């Protein structure tokens, strides 16, 4: 490796100095070098060196010094040759021989183009070396392809050697600078990279003095401060404390931190932009100090965090708002994890259950749901896992004081990054609603009962009182007719037919109101009677089937069933276009089952139950009657498929 004592100088300069000293020294010591070369390459023919060397040595008079000089040249990494005016090698050092992979005698005494490529000699070597023979020192870079090493970058220096005022020889020093070039290129690229980062960084990057001037700034920092370019910033902003800081005292704080710790991280300060706009800036910086610990300058980065801070504030505000909603909701709101343990609950949840939040959190939901609703709660939980739906169901909450409250729970899964993490739901206390429903049900039942009682009373009154009176009148008329004279007979007959008519009307009216059969003969007889009448009137052939005699069933039940059948058949007559209908009654497993079917056009059961039309009211009425005796109604119908109304009433409960 080539070394120079003055390490601060570039290697090129060192090279030149070395070269010139060589030129200088060569004036004195050239010839002896050849001899020593001859010595090292023993057995070599020295005939070609026929001229002055011996004289030179004699003149120098210092053999030892020359030999040392020879050794230096031999050991140099630079390739050194001396060429005469015929372009013949006079001398070549070890480095030159090695790089061309030739022996001394293959070089010295030969023409340069014999060692190098002829074309290269003509185009590169000759023009330059001729300038050297003309007395110039020539320096140039060139690429040369060695047979062993391939292409190399060479720095070439030709120094003319004067002898007796004439230039007969030129000393050529060639230095391989391939590696250095490569290293320089890498350095340049690295510098470019850092420059790019600096130039294109989103963060502001700066160097500034303690006194408040910028030494360096990148475009991002300039933009942040409201300037077009770093130069604009550096030139115009000469007092950071006064020009940038919204509150100059904050700068003092910054300086103190720098002096004390030598660094600041996330230092937030409000800064003025050149247009007067205030921005919040976060600074990371360090103090750069010299060896004695004196602060040279500060360097660091700055980030405009105004938007981020605003967003954070907005987020906080919206979170607060949601928390308020959550807290002030009238409905209890909860969240539980996948194991069913509560992770959050609001104030309404405390009020509903009577438990403190601390008593709720971490506990499983089964602690708060009445056992008979647990299965449903669990099923709903599983249902949500299968399908991402909201489930709504009724349940009962067990409060701290042991009371139970009817509630409606609606809940859904919550996700985090696509993964189910728990369930969130609201619980509404429906005690009031339930009470209202119960009251309504009671009223509805009482209304139906009162109506039946009233009808029965009027029907009886008509049938048994007025009817009997009319019957008595008729009997009397008959007696009179038997004992009367002929002339009164026609008037009596007329009177009897008037009475008959009145009797028929009374009976019809009575039956319409409430068939006495229901009370005296039971449900099945009443249904048989009604369906026979119905067949005649509607033209729908209607039959009644029953597995067994149905008697000894509660009065209310037979009334409800009879009325429901009546209503269902009336619906059939109105809408179904049916030709046949059947009413069947059976008693099975402690339940009375009444089924009314027709073969008509059918209807959309759901639509009718939910709708508000008169037909829907008919179905509602049936439902109410069934509910009033503890039973329920199943309606099975579809368009074009006939209709089936099934009433199921448990018998033991009543």
């Amino acid at each position, binding site marked *: 490796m080539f070394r120079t004592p003055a390490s601060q100088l570039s290697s090129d300069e060192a090279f030149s100095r070395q070269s010139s000293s060589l030129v200088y020294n060569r004036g004195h010591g050239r010839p002896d070098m050849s001899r020593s070369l001859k010595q090292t390459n023993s057995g070599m023919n020295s005939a070609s060196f026929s001229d002055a060397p011996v004289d030179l040595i004699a003149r120098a008079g210092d053999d030892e010094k020359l030999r040392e000089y020879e050794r230096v040249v031999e050991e140099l990494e630079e390739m050194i040759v001396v060429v005469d005016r015929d372009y013949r090698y006079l001398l070549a050092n070890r480095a030159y021989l090695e790089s061309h992979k030739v022996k001394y005698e293959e070089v010295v005494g030969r023409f340069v183009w014999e060692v190098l490529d002829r074309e290269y000699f003509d185009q590169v070597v000759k023009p330059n070396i001729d300038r050297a023979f003309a007395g110039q020192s020539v320096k140039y870079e060139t690429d040369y392809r060695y047979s062993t090493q391939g292409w190399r970058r060479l720095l070439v220096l030709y120094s003319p050697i004067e002898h007796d005022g004439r230039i007969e020889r030129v000393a050529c020093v060639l230095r391989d600078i391939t590696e250095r070039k490569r290293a320089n290129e890498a350095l340049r690229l690295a510098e470019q990279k850092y420059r790019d980062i600096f130039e294109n960084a989103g963060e502001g990057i700066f160097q500034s003095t303690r006194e408040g001037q910028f030494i360096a700034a990148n475009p991002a920092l300039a933009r942040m401060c409201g300037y077009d370019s770093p130069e604009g910033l550096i030139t115009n902003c000469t007092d950071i404390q006064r020009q940038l800081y919204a509150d100059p005292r904050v700068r003092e704080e910054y300086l103190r931190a720098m002096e004390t710790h030598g660094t600041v991280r996330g230092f937030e300060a409000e800064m003025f932009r050149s247009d007067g706009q205030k921005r919040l800036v976060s600074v990371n910086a360090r103090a750069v100090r010299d060896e004695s610990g004196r602060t040279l300058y500060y360097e660091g980065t700055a980030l405009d965090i105004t938007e981020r801070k605003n967003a954070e504030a907005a987020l906080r505000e919206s979170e607060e708002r949601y928390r308020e909603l959550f807290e002030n909701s009238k409905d209890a709101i909860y969240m539980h994890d996948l194991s069913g343990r509560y992770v959050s609950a609001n104030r309404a949840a405390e009020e509903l259950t009577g438990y403190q939040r601390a008593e709720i959190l971490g506990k499983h939901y089964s602690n708060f749901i009445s056992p008979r609703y647990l299965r449903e709660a669990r099923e709903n939980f599983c249902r949500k896992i299968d399908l991402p739906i909201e489930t709504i169901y009724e349940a009962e909450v067990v409060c701290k004081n042991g009371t139970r409250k009817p509630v409606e729970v609606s809940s859904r899964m919550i996700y985090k990054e696509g993964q189910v993490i728990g369930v969130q739901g609201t619980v509404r206390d429906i005690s009031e609603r339930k009470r209202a429903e119960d009251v309504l049900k009671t009223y509805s039942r009482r209304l139906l009962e009162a109506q039946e009682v009233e009808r029965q009373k009027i029907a*009886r009154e008509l*049938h*048994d009182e007025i*009817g*009997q*009176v009319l*019957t*008595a009148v*008729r*009997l*009397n*008329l*008959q*007696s009179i007719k*038997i*004992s009367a004279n002929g002339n009164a007979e026609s008037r009596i007959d007329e009177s*009897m037919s008037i009475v*008959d008519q009145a*009797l028929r009307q009374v*009976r019809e009216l009575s039956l319409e109101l409430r*068939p*006495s*059969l229901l009370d*005296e*003969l*039971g449900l099945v*007889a*009443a249904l*048989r*009677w009604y369906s*026979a009448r119905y067949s005649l009137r509607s033209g729908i052939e209607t039959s009644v089937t029953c*597995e*067994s*005699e*149905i*008697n*000894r069933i509660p009065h209310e039940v037979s009334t409800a069933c009879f009325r429901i059948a009546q209503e269902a058949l009336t619906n059939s007559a109105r809408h179904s276009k049916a030709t046949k209908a059947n009413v069947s009654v059976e*008693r099975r497993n402690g339940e009375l089952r009444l089924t009314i079917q027709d073969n008509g056009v059918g209807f959309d059961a759901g639509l009718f139950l939910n709708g508000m039309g008169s037909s829907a009211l008919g179905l509602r009425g049936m439902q109410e009657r069934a509910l009033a005796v503890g039973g329920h109604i199943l309606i099975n119908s579809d368009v074009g498929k006939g209709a089936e109304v099934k009433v199921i009433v448990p018998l033991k409960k009543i």
Partner: protein
Amino acid sequence: MNPTRILLVDDHALVRAGIRALITMIDGFEVVGEAGNGAEALALIETVNPDLVLLDITMPSMNGLTALNEIKTRFPNVRVIILTMHEAREYAIQALRGGAAGFSPKRAASNELQQAIETVMAGKTYVSPELAHDGVSAEQAAAYDQELLNKLTPRQREILILIAEGKSMKEIGRSLNISVKTVESHRAQLTERLGIHDVAGLVRFAIRLGLVRVE
């Protein structure tokens, strides 16, 4: 020939008076008593020993159909004609099944009463022509019973007959080689199917259908 002794049972005094007036005009008939409900009627039958009872259906305390069952159980030889405001055939069939010999609506009584009484006293069944036209007959009532009987399983029918013959549960169990509990369960099922819950009713049902013979 002794006149036919008739008991009037109706809760309406006016109606009773009307019927009595009518009957009085007919030779061979004699009203031997009047009752306002079923219970009174049963008490009177014992004392006045009528041949025939003209029985209304709708009455307070004990209605006519219940009274009919009682009468036919306690006094099988007393004949009963149902004389009622009701004209539905279900009433007529029920009455005939209950052992009534005749059924006549009150409205028609003034015209039909004599014939009805005479028919019944002759040992036949009388059904008012309007209802007869509507298919009501003794045969129909019997068919109804038969239909009910068909709903019983062979084992239930067997047990019905044994009950009608006056056998106790224990005796029935022994003769059929089954436990008393099983007998009771069969009995519960068959009474449910027939809709007849008293032994007397079951006996009458069995007799009507000729399952057992009256000694």
